[in-house]
């Protein structure tokens, strides 16, 4: 039940409903239904959702700093819109981006790992 409330709150906030009105209506509703005791559980669910959004938030990694702009615009074409690119030298070349469970990996490391696995598997 608390997850349903939490996801409804999340959705309404993302639709632009004002926080004050949302909070007031929520409390009125919970009191009317005798469900005020759900409030701590709803809070926990919202916190989990917040952490999940942070973890699955948009990130773009590049192998070299100078590729950042190019990588950000390439990532945007896949719907990954990040403010800045993080340098990750282990990628060797190229970039990779993640957002809400979607991964686009165009790094040299991925390419080499794929080749290695195919050669070793045969």
């Amino acid at each position, binding site marked *: 039940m608390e997850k349903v409330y939490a996801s409804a709150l999340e959705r309404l906030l993302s639709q632009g409903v004002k926080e004050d009105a949302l909070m007031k209506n929520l409390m009125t509703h919970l009191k009317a239904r005798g469900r005020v005791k759900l409030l701590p559980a709803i809070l926990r669910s919202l916190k989990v959702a917040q952490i999940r959004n942070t973890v*699955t938030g948009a990130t773009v990694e590049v192998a070299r700093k100078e590729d950042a702009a190019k990588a950000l615009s390439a990532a945007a074409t896949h719907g990954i819109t990040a403010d800045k690119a993080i340098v990750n030298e282990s990628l060797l070349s190229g970039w990779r981006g993640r957002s809400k469970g979607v991964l686009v990996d165009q790094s040299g490391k991925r390419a080499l790992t*794929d080749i290695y696995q195919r050669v070793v598997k045969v």
Partner: protein
Amino acid sequence: MDSIIKRIEKEIADFAPATGAEETGIVRATGDGIAEIDGLDKAVMTEMVLFDPTFDRSLEDALKDADPVYGLILNLEEDGVRAAILGDASRVYEGMLVRRLGRLLSIPVGDSLVGRVVNPLGDAVDGKGPTKATKFVPIEREAYGVMDRAPVNVPLHTGIKAIDSMIPIGRGQRELIIGDRGVGKTTVAIDAILNQKSEPEESRPICIYVAIGQKESKTAKIVAQLAELGAMEYTVVVTAPASAPAALQFLAPFAGAAIGEHFMDSGRDALVIYDDLSKQAVAYRQMSLLLRRPPGREAYPGDIFYLHSRLLERAAKLSKEKGGGSLTALPIIETQEGDISAYIPTNVISITDGQMFLLSDLFNKGMRPAIDTGNSVSRVGSAAQTKAMKKVSGKIKLELAQFRELEAFMQFSSDLDEDTKKRIDGGRRMTEVLKQTNGQPLPFEMQSAIIFAAVNGYFDAFTPDETSAMEKKMQEYFLREAKNVLSGIREKKEITEDLEKELRSALQKFVEINKGA
């Protein structure tokens, strides 16, 4: 060296980097072979996922441990999924990236699997290198419908007299082998595989032996026995040993069925042995409990019946339009203290088309195979029995049942009339005739001739104690002196009047030679 250089050059030349977006999730928690994964909103049931150990490591570290770990999605939940880890679960860690593979769990199938030992994912485990199978099929598939099937009417000979005469099996049938541990269930199944060697190559079924939760030493022994007797030429072994993750033990029978279906779909006959489904049920129970599914009777999940029914429904005899192939299933169930009314045994008894019940009491009395003829039945196999066998085996079951009754009576009655004594002796002789050493299946024409001799009183000239030795002598005698009778039965699949005359005269001679010897 040249070869590897060329291969790498080719891979680099052919390489097209993945440019598309992939759906990924993150391992939230893992333990006991189950991973809880956050994300993967669009994943579907029984889809394969890849736990990527290379994602957050440097290339050097990634290549040291680049073997992928696969998972199988078994629970779709509100905010994530739960997957069974199909491999080394210790390599899966919290925060690990998981990729959707977009395909249901599939295994490679093909003729190149014959003679090989593979795991439930189709990877070779016999040290002979990878298999050459390239066609992938999902391991879970809906069984053929009514219109695609034909009646079961072709016999599948096991080479065991007691089975082929009283509990005949047809191609496409599901016949359960049930009994306590150590009563010879696997032996019956292996003998059935060995006997297929005597079948003509064009109609010889491809055999698939699925070892579930067995000791690896036992499976190795079986493979060695099959290889030694030339049976690996037409056999595939699928093994998920006791040390394998529960997920692989649960999947092994489905993999065996998928391999068998490949042969059935190509118009051939296949025989699959699930050794044993009790262990698969236990593995499935373990997984279900770890997946937090509600436990039912004996803590098995609610869909334990469906697990076995959907597996065994895949056995079929296909119609001519579908190629006429067949998949015969011999599932094995282990009972505790002979209790066939326990949960899993009753489930599987009700699903299958009959059962052979092996009794430890009979086994201890030296009856091999220790088949309890009273509780064993074949519901469709008699339609597939050859005329020869039907003719000779008509009354055996009834006679043996009467003998068992009298045998019990004999224990507390010292004074027996002549007729009862005769019946008891007849029953003892028949019991001796039906005894058979393991690993020595008999072709059906030999079985028919011996049972003909038994039911027509040709063993009456000998005492019950002599019967077993005489039966062996009779086999040798037939091979030496009455080869034409055997080949006649084999060819015509029945004992015609002429053949019966020849058979009677051969048996008469045998009795004359051996009486009082």
